[in-house]
């Protein structure tokens, strides 16, 4: 269990530090790489949450595709990778809002509702769905087959849209 805690701390640190560095890095390629790091941390959290399928998808989709895509975009707009001033004039306000949001979430929602002692343990039954269960849930009629089809339509539309937008002419 200590190992689990250790893993949690490491993955959380990956996720949070990575996220912070995404914002902080002046070099966008570094930002993108830190994003990969953060996403990797999140994938680790998924494994801790007994969702290995999501972890694998996280790595495959986010790191293998989205991050690559972002890096591609960064490099295609290369003259802009190192803008002299990475933050805009309202950044202090943004920081305040981010901080207020965080405090409000933690102090206003998370701790009062799910805080100390309220839900410390995993459910006793500890029944964790397998990948097979996800698959069945996704395509069964009383499950999520309609959202699933809609999602596939969304992807098709996004693909067509991206091609149309980014095409030269």
């Amino acid at each position, binding site marked *: 269990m200590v190992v689990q805690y250790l893993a949690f701390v490491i993955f959380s640190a990956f996720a949070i530090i990575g996220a912070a560095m995404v914002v902080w890095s002046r070099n966008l390629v570094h930002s993108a790489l830190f994003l990969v790091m953060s996403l990797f941390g999140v994938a680790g959290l998924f494994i801790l949450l007994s969702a*290995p399928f999501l972890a694998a998808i996280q*790595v495959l989709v986010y790191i293998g595709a989205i991050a690559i895509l972002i890096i591609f975009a960064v490099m295609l707009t290369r003259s802009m990778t190192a803008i002299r001033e990475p933050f805009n004039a309202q950044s202090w306000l943004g920081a305040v809002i981010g901080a207020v949001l965080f405090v409000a979430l933690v102090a206003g929602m998370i701790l009062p509702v799910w805080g100390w002692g309220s839900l410390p343990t995993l459910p006793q039954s500890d029944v964790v769905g397998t990948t097979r269960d996800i698959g069945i849930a996704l395509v069964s009629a009383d499950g999520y087959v309609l959202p699933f089809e809609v999602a596939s339509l969304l992807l098709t539309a996004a693909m067509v849209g991206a091609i149309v937008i980014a095409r030269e002419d």
Partner: protein
Amino acid sequence: MASFLTTLLVVAIVATTPLVLAIPLIWIERKVAARIQDRLGPNRVGPWGIIQPIADAIKLIGKEDITPAGTDKVVYNLAPIVAVASVVLMWACIPFAPNLIGVDLEIGVLYIVSVASLGTMAIMMAGWSGNNKYALLGAFRVVAQLVSYEVPLVLSLLIPVLLAGSMGMQDIVTAQQGMWFIFMAPVAALIFFISAQAETGRAPFDLLEAESELVAGFNIEYSGMKFGLFFAGEFVHVLTNGVLIAHLFVGGWWGLGVSAEGGILSNVLGLIYLVIKTTIFYFISLWLRNTLPRVRIDQLMNFNWKFLVPISVANLVITSLLLKISQVAGFAVDLTTNASFTAALPMTLLLLGGNIALILGVIAIYGFNIRRDRVQEEAQAEAIAHAPSH
């Protein structure tokens, strides 16, 4: 704590195996290449030059560790590590024998694919951090190639998953007790082999290090052991692909005298069978590399998007359809519960028929297109020939 230490030990063993394997592989590769090219190959260090790769390794390690000026140092140094790591991580859930496996993940195949996609990341990092336009161009090409070929790779990978009804590697292997999947899905096996070859970036798909165009590709700024790591990563990747094909399509460690329950004999025999099968596919890969010329980038992309992807999609659809039909018709067997050869035969024949029909269909369609193109070209040529000259 003890279990944790055991786990660590397993991790160490599993991670080291492919890296150690890489050393003899280099020798094998050079020897085979030499024989194919009618040469002798390495023959000075040790008997038949067998110690040559170790000497090379020592030389690489002994070289000065250069980080060129103007590079992004962290990224530059991280790239080779990620490259090797992505390949090595794959081995975590590749079975060696009935009981020998790092960890039999429920999502084994997906894990392997997702980890493999990290390699793309490494190449991107290497290409960008070197601060060299050739490196970056090379990286672009490679990434385009790798991302594209990942599509047919994954689509053909889904066929064994579909047949076995599981994504776990051991499950897939176990399901092939009575019948290898290559008989049920030859088209998928072929596509998988081609895409895997492209994923490793070897000839005829070695666009990433097209010396004549890009000097050396994404790793141009690397030298010494960092270069060596990329190199080792590539070798291990080829080997990994061999192992994967062996597992996914030709029954992995299954062979005469192996039982799924394990036992010393089974494990040893299983390992031997696996090595034999892997070697065969590894050899085919080398053979191809040393005989085929490099394709152009447009041919590469056309081949993928206009040929492999449609066929693999069609293949997936046909296979799942036929599976459903065989289920409805009642002669489908649950392969995970040790189906015998005879039990699996009707289903196999149906699927094989489907595959053959697919192949014939593809030949017909492409043959028609080619013929039409040729007719058009001839007509054009004739028009030019008959055009009044100035």
